Each structure stands twice: as C-alpha cells, then as structure tokens.
C-alpha cells in the first residue's frame, strides 16, 4: 500500500511544470543535505569507511600486474603528485576511441594497454579501490570535467538523457533533481545530483560504489531498463552531471545515506 502511495507522489512530481536548470549560486553538494552525523563520518578520515578503499588502492598502485610486470607507480610515480586534480577532469575525451571515458575506464585502459593485464570488473573491489585512491588526490579541488571542446557533443547527449522521461514511472532525472531538489521523497532528501564525491561510501550499500552504480540504481528506480556497465549512455550522463557541477569541490571518497 505504501508503495502505491509513493508511486502516486511520484506521478504528481512527474506532472509538475519543468523548472529551469539550477542557478550556479544555488548549487549544493549532496553533503549539505545530510545530517550532522553523516557529515562527521565523511569529514574525518578514520571515521570514513571510504578511506579503507583508498588504503587498498594505495597498495594496488604500487603492485606490479600483467605481462608487462609494471605497477601504476612505475609510470606515474607518486600519485599524490601525479594524480592531483586528475579525477576532477573525468570523464575525459579518449582520442583512440573518439569518445569520453570515465575514471574507471581510464584505469582499465591503462591495465590493458600498459600493464597488459586483464581489466578489472566494474564495481570490483580493486577497481573501486584504485579509482578511490586516484579520486582522493583531487579532494578539495574544483570539478573541471567537460571543458574540453571535443566533449561538447557528448555533454549534450548526456543532457538529453538527463531530461528524457523513461521507465514505467515516466520520469526524467530532471523531474526530481532540477525541479524538486528542495523536497523529500519518502524520508530521503532529493538532492541536486552533483556527483562531487564518487566513488563514495553509501550507508545503504554498506560499501563504496561508483557513479555508474548510482545511475543504474536511479534508472532502475524509475522502472526503466538500466544501461549496461560502461555503456556510452552512462558515461555521457556521468559527463553531463560532472560538467553541470563544474567549479564545485571534489569530496571523494564522500559518504552519503
């Protein structure tokens, strides 16, 4: 019964007039929608479970892998210097593919091309750990993804996807995250969907997870068929969301409810 009630609420949302994009000055990180307890969990490294993945990633960074028997550190040296600000630019244009790749895909391209190792599975502990370690090096820096002109058509595709209604609930991302971000859905705050902290530790997941996992969850939530892991659509949506958050500060690994 409660489920039906909530669908009714959503239908109301879906019928609301579409508002304009969120003005720059009103943009808010998901952090600011959380309770003080959850904020505290993110703020202190010893209290932030996401840091466990960062530690794992630091070890992986130095571990040799693949037929090339090379570690990330053999090419990139100390990540604290070489990876500073890097994640704030992802997804980034990959010229050999002619399209954007996200941070996880970049790590896997490095594995296959330079380490001659098999790529990590999406959402595997190792891929999350390495991406968390790399993203951690950008903490506090402004998001700059999407500024490369070659990305413009892909940002636009991502934007179209953000607006497009889909699924049995016939909702677009925009219906919640632009039009109703100051409201609640059941007990949860509807946020503005700025991916400032990925990969992040979600209390719901009791684990670290990627932005793709979050997007797939939202798409499943509106009862649509989620795009496959690594699909161009998901990367374009990631790219649009990151470009929409340009200038906001990186928080990875963030904590969210």
């Amino acid at each position: 019964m409660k489920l039906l009630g909530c669908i009714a609420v959503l239908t109301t949302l879906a019928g609301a007039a579409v508002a304009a994009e969120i003005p720059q000055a009103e943009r808010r990180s998901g952090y600011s929608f959380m309770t003080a307890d959850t904020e505290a969990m993110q703020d202190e490294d010893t209290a932030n479970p996401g840091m466990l993945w960062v530690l794992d990633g630091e070890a992986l960074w130095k571990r040799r892998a693949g037929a090339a028997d090379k570690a990330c550190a053999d090419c990139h040296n100390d990540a604290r210097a070489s990876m500073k600000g890097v994640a704030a630019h992802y997804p980034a244009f990959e010229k050999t593919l002619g399209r954007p790749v996200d941070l996880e895909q970049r790590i896997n391209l490095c594995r296959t091309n330079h380490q001659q190792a098999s790529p990590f599975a999406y959402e595997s502990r190792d891929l999350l750990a390495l991406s968390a370690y790399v993203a951690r090096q950008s903490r506090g820096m402004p998001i700059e993804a999407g500024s490369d002109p070659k990305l413009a058509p892909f940002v636009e595709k991502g934007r179209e996807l953000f607006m497009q209604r889909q699924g049995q609930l016939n909702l677009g991302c925009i219906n919640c995250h632009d039009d109703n971000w100051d409201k609640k859905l059941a007990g949860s705050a509807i946020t503005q969907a700025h991916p400032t902290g990925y990969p992040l530790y979600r209390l719901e997941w009791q684990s670290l997870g990627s932005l793709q996992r979050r997007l797939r969850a939202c798409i499943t939530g509106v009862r649509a068929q989620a795009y496959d892991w690594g699909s161009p659509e998901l990367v374009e949506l990631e790219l649009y969301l990151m470009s929409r958050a340009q200038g906001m500060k990186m928080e990875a690994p963030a904590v969210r409810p």
Partner: protein
Amino acid sequence: MPSALINVPAKAKRGDIIEIKTLMSHIMETGYRHTASGEVVPRDIITSFTCRYNGTEIFRTDLYPAIAANPFITFFTTVTESGKFEFEWIGDKGFSETASASITVE
C-alpha cells in the same frame, strides 16, 4: 589483507586520557539474509575486538550481526608510559587481523 584505520595520538602526557578510534574493513554479513532462491547467506562477522597496551588487555568488545559493516569502534584509555597499542579482530571463517600503533608519553 583487509585494510584497517587506527587513530591514536602520536604523543601524550603521562596521565592523559586519550581517545582511540578504529575502523576495520569487513562485510559483517549477518547470517539473516536470504538469496532469492531461499538459501541463507552464511553469517560472516567479526565476533571479537581486543586492544592491548604494552601487552595488557585494556579494552575488549563482543560484536554481533547488529554491528554495521566495516566496524568502527572508539574508546578511551589513560596513558602511563610510551609503548605500543596492539589491536586484534577475530571473526567467522577464520578471520584474524592485527594492527598496532605507537605512542610517546612524556
């Protein structure tokens, strides 16, 4: 080896009460969950956490499935001498991990 995060002040004065914070990587599978086909997902939790200070037990915890994943435990102790804190987590499926942290007491 699973990661652990320990927060112990590097230095303290004799007689100070310090806070120790610990975070251990662990799934804490409750044993109360089932798969869609009805099979129980077997319990896999940390059951015990112990802290020793220069060999003497100063704090111990029994953990149950109601402790959240990646157990976070904080507690206090009075420091009397420089030395080493040793931490030990023991659990199901032969889980056994240790970590340590040193403190200088002036």
